[in-house]
């Protein structure tokens, strides 16, 4: 199959097909793959895929538990070897990664290289650099209450963890948590999204080839396989996706008291004030919206809130900048991802067909079902009870809500569920601080969008409907570690105040000891309190 890709001049090459007729291409490819797999009789992989039932799943988990119990994954050497292997995956296979993402999402190569590969490389680098420091037990001070003693907090891996990833940044959202899990010394099962099948199978292949198979495995599949996986007892589950499946994951985890991290989504608002550098703001909004997988990102600006007065100016600048970025025919632009599949295409079309927003489209609105493409679309003055404002858009549609005074925008945001991110463009210090203080979201950015994803010293996670837990940088390591409290006491210095028989003197001494005041203790010892 790979040989076909070299001949890009042929009009009926798979690459040509995948660009021009993505949905058809996907269907043909799947058919071909299933035919090949059926004919393949060395089918170890095939039969494993077909028979991934509860028994196979139990066996997998048991084997991983055995590996973990042997202590293999806890050593610094192992963790470094796996992180280096991951880094090698990115270095050696960039073209294949770009191709897979092009197949699954028509993702522009630059977006793949920068937002998926470069970010992962960075993550690996940070982990490799800091790992020794992260693994070192943290010594903590002890007080008079436990004198004499010494104490430390030791980070231990949980054991065998399950990571369920999403389709929109299939590489990044699969491997970033894996980096954290490995750095923390766990054994891992990764379940990539079936909605990005090329990436899913590439991940299975690459992790199978490069990583330690006795402790890191990929299970491909859809709802059935995920349900089977969720029935097992995991030591931690890390899920990236939507709130509906997030609930299914948490419910399954509750049966085994498994702690979870849920990275969900939400409607990330952008508040735009008037006294700003509008050109730069518009560019940053566009980069965060259409420049991020064509709006199919959990932290993409979902909608804008601005004043009635300023809206026309904003719309004009957005139009100008959009044309600079994507040309006069954005539907054809190679610099935009397509919509992932017909399900989502239909979902987004419905949002545009809603009666409540008819006549509100001020830019774009073009669709091409055969290519699963929707052009960057701006809607102005959409009513708050329209379909497009009732769910996370996750696509290239940008509604603009208008208010009389910009302060109202904060109330609008707080009346909805807490989003994963919220953005504001303003130079008004008071508004800035009010926004930061009162808007509750996973993360906030002032005068830009989506950037906080790249800052590894910031925790990345949601609150409320947008999720539970966080990761990135050391937060990833912590998310996959149990912080064990260790207290060292000696046999010397035994304060009998703790033990019965209880007397008033002991009570006085206890009060002084727990109060921690030396003077108090002396007074108690001499019977003065």
């Amino acid at each position: 199959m790979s040989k076909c890709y070299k001949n890009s001049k042929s009009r009926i090459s798979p690459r040509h097909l995948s660009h021009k007729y993505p949905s058809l291409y996907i269907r043909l490819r799947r058919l071909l793959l299933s035919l090949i797999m059926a004919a393949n009789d060395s089918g170890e992989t095939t039969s494993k895929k077909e028979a991934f039932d509860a028994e196979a799943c139990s066996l997998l988990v048991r084997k991983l538990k055995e590996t973990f119990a042997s202590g293999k994954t806890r050593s610094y050497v192992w963790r470094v070897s796996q992180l280096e292997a991951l880094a090698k995956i990115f270095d050696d296979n960039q073209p294949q990664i770009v191709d897979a993402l092009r197949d699954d999402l028509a993702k522009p190569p630059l977006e793949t290289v920068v937002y998926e590969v470069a970010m992962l490389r960075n993550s690996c680098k940070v982990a490799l650099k800091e790992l020794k420091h992260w693994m070192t037990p943290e010594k903590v001070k002890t007080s008079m209450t436990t004198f004499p003693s010494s104490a430390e907090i030791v980070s231990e891996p949980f054991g065998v963890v399950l990571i369920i990833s999403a389709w929109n940044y299939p590489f990044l959202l699969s491997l970033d948590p894996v980096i954290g899990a490995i750095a923390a010394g766990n054994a891992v099962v990764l379940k990539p999204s079936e909605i990005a099948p090329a990436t899913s199978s590439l991940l299975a292949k690459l992790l199978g080839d490069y990583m330690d198979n006795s402790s890191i495995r990929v299970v491909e599949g859809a709802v059935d396989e995920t349900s089977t996986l969720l029935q097992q007892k995991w030591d931690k589950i890390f899920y990236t996706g939507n709130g509906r499946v997030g609930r299914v994951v948490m419910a399954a985890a509750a049966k085994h008291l498994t702690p979870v991290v849920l990275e969900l989504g939400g409607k990330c608002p952008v508040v735009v004030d008037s006294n700003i550098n509008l050109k730069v703001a518009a560019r940053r909004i566009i980069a965060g919206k259409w420049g991020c997988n064509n709006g199919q990102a959990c932290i993409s600006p979902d909608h804008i809130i601005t004043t009635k007065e300023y809206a026309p100016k904003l719309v004009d600048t957005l139009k100008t900048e959009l044309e600079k970025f994507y040309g006069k025919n954005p539907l054809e632009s190679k610099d935009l991802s397509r919509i992932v599949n017909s399900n989502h295409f239909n979902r987004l079309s419905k949002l545009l067909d809603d009666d409540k927003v008819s006549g509100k489209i001020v830019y774009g609105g073009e669709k091409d079902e055969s290519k699963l493409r929707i052009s960057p679309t701006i809607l102005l003055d959409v009513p708050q009870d329209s379909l497009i404002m009732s769910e996370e858009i996750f696509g290239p549609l940008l509604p603009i809500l208008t208010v009389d005074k910009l302060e109202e925008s904060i109330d609008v945001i707080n009346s909805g569920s807490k989003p994963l991110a919220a953005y504001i463009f303003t130079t008004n210090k008071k508004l800035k601080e009010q926004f930061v203080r009162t808007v509750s979201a996973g993360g906030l950015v002032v005068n830009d969008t989506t950037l906080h994803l790249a800052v590894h010293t910031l925790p990345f996670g949601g609150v409320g409907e947008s999720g539970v837990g966080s990761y990135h940088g050391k937060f990833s390591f912590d998310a996959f570690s149990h912080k064990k409290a260790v207290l060292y006491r000696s046999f010397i210095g035994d304060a009998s105040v703790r033990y019965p028989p209880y007397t008033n003197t002991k009570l006085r001494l206890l009060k002084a000891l727990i109060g921690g005041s030396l003077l108090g203790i002396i007074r108690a010892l001499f019977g003065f309190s």
Partner: protein
Amino acid sequence: METELNHMREYYEGGYTKEASWREAQLKGLRSFIIEKQEDIMNALLQDLGKHQVEAFRDEIGTLMKTLNLALKNLKKWMSAKKAELPKIALLTSAEIVPEPFGLVLIISSWNFPFGLSLEPVIGAVAAGNTVVLKPSELSPACSSVLASGLATYLDHKAIKVIQGGPQETQQLLHQRWDKIFFTGSAHVGRIVMSAAVNHLTPVTLELGGKCPAVVDSLSSSWDIEVAVKRIAVGKFGTCAGQACIAIDYVIVEKEYCSKLVELLKVWIKKMFGENPKHTKTISRIVNKHHFFRLKNLLADAKVNESVVYGGSMDEQDLFIEPTILVDPPLEASIMTEEIFGPLLPIITVGKIEDSIKFLRSRPKPLALYVFTKSQTLQRRILSETSSGSLTFNDAILQYAADTLPFGGVGESGFGMYHGKFSFDTFSHHKAIVRRSFLTDFWYRYPPWTLNKLQLLEVSYNYDYLGLLLVVLGLKKPSNRRHF
């Protein structure tokens, strides 16, 4: 109930609880409550659990005072934003992490340390700026009502409420929408709580239990073994008669050392609890008939009964069970498969003390693990080869009082942690904030995409400043990019 909670939410939206002054006032209010109502508190504990006032002070009142003082002293520091480091390329950009309250939190507490386990989380929740509903356990009713009246009097009743009741009220509460749930109790109810939390994707902290083992090495010095025995005796029988999540559940010791350990235990039990513990009132009672009979049944099995070497007497009227020691009861018996939560101490013997590691690893992870040894090798092995919520060497229970150590479980013993600053963090959402300027805008962030822009982005992401310079000057060759 829903209306009451809506009012609390509205009050929260008003922003009052976010103010440092409000939080301080609540913490000071709690401190006054504990100081002024100390007698009521001690009487309630005596009534519900037969807990001696010194035990009450040592384990609940004293520790709460310590926590309150710590919280008041450090509140401003805990509330402050923490700057996050940024790479040099991020010119004119700042990043910080700001803790914010979740909103309306539910705290469900337990009956064995009704004040401690209710108020320690409340302190954390209030310090973090949340509004709180506390549901104390109905199995300790006197304490429950002291808490209800106390908190209503001393704290802001619009933001902090106590809702008393049993399983029905708890179920009703669990159906509501909470921004965080903090639960202390059994694994069985823990599962119910977490399942209820799924509906609204509410984050939970579960402080559960488990069988906390004490591994006792063959200590050679007589001073050492005496101290160890004292700490074990108080860590089992002296802590609410063994009805504590971190009480020593059972002991593991080398076969040869067992009789010495048992003899010393007998001596010290008598010294601490008197010849007639029922009359000296130094040991707490069993909380109610249900638990009394549960414990009685643990000894019902013939083989288990045979293994009793000390104690065993019970008084149903008084809900009293004498400190009891067993040696090597059958491992399949309930006494060795369920959390005992009472004053029955099984001692399991092994050939070599190192065998205890295998024993521990084959069982669910406990909330606490205690190891009495001077051997650094054994200490190191247990530290790295076993897992538990916490690990304490040469003592027991004391880790509860250490503010700088996180208190929480792992696996079957729960997840999440609190105490000290960890309480504040557990009730806070750590919000990431990035502030950018309009002045620094990198043109290569934006399409239309070119190879040059790709190069620039790659070096930027690698913080490769020299590379950046070279690319800008046109001096760096692009690597093979056939996909462009």
